């Protein structure tokens, strides 16, 4: 299989970030207290990465995919438990897109992808801890299963 270019990989990451931001909108309203604050911080982190990617892709003259009005969630978010489960899953999925970008990038772009992979993997672990789910970690964060 042909290695996607850095631009293609980052375009795919941007679409994943759009979906993560949408999902956190559904997640946050089902949480309270510290968990809700954590969801808002997580959503803000995904927005920052989205904004940076839009600038980056635009500057490079690449295609900036449009955001969509809605994204299909893997299951309905109806309560705290399903919200926390989806939050961990959103982090793992976006981490997987950044992980895929590692092979297509070098230098500072690879550093950027690795920082996002690490941050999201750690946040997925925090969400599992909040949900009381074990094990807290996966052996290969971001690797397709």
């Amino acid at each position, binding site marked *: 299989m042909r290695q996607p270019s850095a631009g293609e990989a980052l375009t795919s990451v941007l679409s994943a970030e759009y979906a993560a931001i949408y999902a956190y909108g559904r997640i946050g309203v089902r949480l309270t207290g510290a968990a809700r604050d954590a969801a808002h911080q997580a959503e803000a982190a995904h927005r920052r990465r989205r904004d940076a990617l839009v600038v980056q892709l635009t500057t490079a003259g690449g295609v900036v995919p449009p955001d969509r009005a809605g994204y299909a969630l893997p299951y309905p978010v109806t309560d705290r438990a399903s919200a926390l489960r989806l939050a961990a899953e959103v982090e793992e999925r976006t981490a997987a897109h950044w992980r895929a970008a590692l092979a297509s990038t070098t230098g500072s772009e690879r550093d950027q992808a690795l920082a996002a992979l690490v941050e999201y993997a750690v946040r997925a672990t925090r969400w599992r801890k909040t949900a009381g789910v074990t094990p807290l970690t996966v*052996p290969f*964060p*971001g690797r397709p299963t």
Partner: protein
Amino acid sequence: MVLTCPVGMGKTTQRDQASGHSRRKLLRAGALLVLGGAVTPLTGCDLFDRDDQPPPPPDPLRPMVDESLTLAAAYQSSATAHPELAARLNPIAEAHTAHARELARVLGVALPSTAPAAPTTAPAANPAGALAALRALEKTAQQSATAACAAAPAERAALLGSIVAARATHQEALK
């Protein structure tokens, strides 16, 4: 002319001093040569081994196999010392073993059956100390994997990225 004369005289004086230093330096150098001759006879053998092919440079992933196995061993000894932590530590030990297995597969080498070196220190007597020691090990290991990922060819970058991230999540899980 007025200036060159005193300068020339100054030079003469300095030359005398310099030659004094030179004699001392020569004596010291001689002493070093004697010492060097005493401690480095083995390096002389290299002079006669020029026909040998230089060994291939070691694969940078190779030390990471050992590092992963050493981490797994550190978790196992902490879990043995503190059985109440075993449920938390065992999955992480298994993750490190899985990393070693995957790295060995990429390298095309057999996975060593045991860690290259037993953990250098015994686990701390109290559980909190043992967890803190493991966190410190993970932090160092995350840094070495980060450097390896940054320098890796494309086909290895994703695997190394996952190992970096795993080591970061382990620190979080140990908090």
